[in-house]
């Protein structure tokens, strides 16, 4: 009798777990990245409660993170397709130049936005052409493109910065980088809105479905009639446009363009994607992870400094965070397979 009861209890607990487990399993990557974010911000709050339990520091993050974050979103799509892009920081710089230069020449906001965004489109097309038609691996093509564009920027601008002839209260400025709802930077909302849009695109749209298939098994995708070329082209154009948009935001925000715009953003953007849980091997990725990852990576330096450690600790934590999180994701993925 006793034995039977125990068995019933065991069976019931088992079935309870059985209900919870699929949900946990399905969202474990998302839960992991949220736990990591909670841990990091928790540690900062312990390290310096005065700073991290008040609004201004978070407002600062909302101002600084989106620019890198936008590019990290694009990079997630690139990695899902089993490609890599190193040229986006230069695209960001170039787009800012195109915007500032065309605005200076013509005074037309529409033309200069067009110039900025189309520079992203053109670079994306050029990258995709070299990768697919010429047949050079994306890491090599985009490395070349990174130097080429950065060089072009310095040559064109003669190494000097450009001022952006826009009023502080110009409509474009309010729309792109103004303050909404009593202090939230508009570009943080752009970042969030685009993250949601790209999330839907990756998981709930035919395009994302094809991206994942192409990165997962390119031959299978082709055999099933997916136009692999066209998917890759669109992905590199998407990356280019997002980087160009980031350049547009940064230039509008600062009201000045510097030839160094985007420099130093390559590694943080990559770190955000990897800490977020997207793999190098293609076929899968998480926009949500990248979104949270961008905030974790973007807040590290401020957090470490305000916790009383010297700034040069930052890189050590960067490294630690990347290695730990990537190890975790790899172990989880192996278990699943």
């Amino acid at each position: 009798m006793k034995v039977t009861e125990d068995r019933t209890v065991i069976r019931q607990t088992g079935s309870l777990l059985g209900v919870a487990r699929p949900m946990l399993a399905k969202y474990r990557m998302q839960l992991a990245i949220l736990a990591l974010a909670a841990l990091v911000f928790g540690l900062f709050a312990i390290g310096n409660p005065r700073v991290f339990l008040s609004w201004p520091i978070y407002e600062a993050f909302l101002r600084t993170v989106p620019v890198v974050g936008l590019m990290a979103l694009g990079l997630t799509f690139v990695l899902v397709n089993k490609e890599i892009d190193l040229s986006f920081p230069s695209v960001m710089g170039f787009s800012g130049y195109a915007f500032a230069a065309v605005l200076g020449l013509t005074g037309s906001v529409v033309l200069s936005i067009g110039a900025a965004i189309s520079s992203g489109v053109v670079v994306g097309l050029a990258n995709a052409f070299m990768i697919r038609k010429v047949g050079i691996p994306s890491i090599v093509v985009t490395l070349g493109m990174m130097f080429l564009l950065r060089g072009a920027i310095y040559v064109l601008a003669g190494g000097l910065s450009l001022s952006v002839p826009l009023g502080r209260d110009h409509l474009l400025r309010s729309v792109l980088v103004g303050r909404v709802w009593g202090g939230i930077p508009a570009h943080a909302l752009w970042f969030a809105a685009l993250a949601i849009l790209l999330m839907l695109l990756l998981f709930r749209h035919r395009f994302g479905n094809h991206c994942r298939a192409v990165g997962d098994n390119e031959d299978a995708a082709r055999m099933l009639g997916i136009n692999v070329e066209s998917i890759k082209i669109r992905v590199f154009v998407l990356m280019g446009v997002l980087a160009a948009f980031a350049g547009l935001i940064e230039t509008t925000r600062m009201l000045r363009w510097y030839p160094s715009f985007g420099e130093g953003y390559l590694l943080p953007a990559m770190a955000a994607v990897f800490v977020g849980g997207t793999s190098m091997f293609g076929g899968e990725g998480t926009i949500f992870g990248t979104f949270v990852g961008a905030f974790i990576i973007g807040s590290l330096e401020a957090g470490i400094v305000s916790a009383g450690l010297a700034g040069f600790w930052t890189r050590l934590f960067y490294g630690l965070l990347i290695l730990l999180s990537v190890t975790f994701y790899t172990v989880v993925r192996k278990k699943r397979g």
Partner: protein
Amino acid sequence: MSLVTMRDVYKKFGEVFALRGVNFDVEENEVVGLIGDNGAGKSTLIKILSGVHRPTGGELRIRGERVNLRRYSVREAHRYGIEPVFQEQALADKQSLWRNLFLGREITGPLGFLKSKEMIRETDSLMSGLLKFTGGGMAPQTHAMTLSGGERQGLAIGRAMYFEAELIILDEPTRALSVKEIGKVLRFVKELKENGKSCVYISHTISHVYAISDRFVILDRGEIVGEYRRDDVTEEELNERLSRAFRLEESPE
């Protein structure tokens, strides 16, 4: 009228001829066993038939209708009811079963957004019906990498059936399968035949080919070197002719 008629098909890769003037037919409700050594041109031939490769020259008719080979593609082949199943290239491992089933032919609403619920429901009924994938905790959301070799093959063939293929092309479907799973695949082909469908079956295992095919076509270095009806040869005779053909090639003079 033949289901498929290929006439004088040539295919050149660089300077090498993979096919030199092949005539190949598949009749309605016929299973054709395509036999040949590695590099004989079997894969090239069926990739042309299924719209993956474009031939250098030749003609393709489907139900008597001449196909414009410049515009022929995988999608076009699908529309004609021609469905290839390539073992290595059939499934995307990190995607769920329902995404695999509908890959390239997703059910979408306006603007191209996926109708996931509908696709999951369809996958579920295919799994419990035709495929008999029951138990083992398998669901439409399961990742393809967890399937066994036979289940993978089953899903790929099931996909072809789901999209109402008239001609299913199987390229080495029994490679790396257990004996039990091989039995399942062969039974599947027999069911296809019973349902009035056609099949091109490629394999190195002559006993499998013999068991299910109505006709055998032997390909060697881009040319058809033999064609037999099952009614005309025994398995032993077929084996003997094959080994004679291949031994001749190997001898230097």
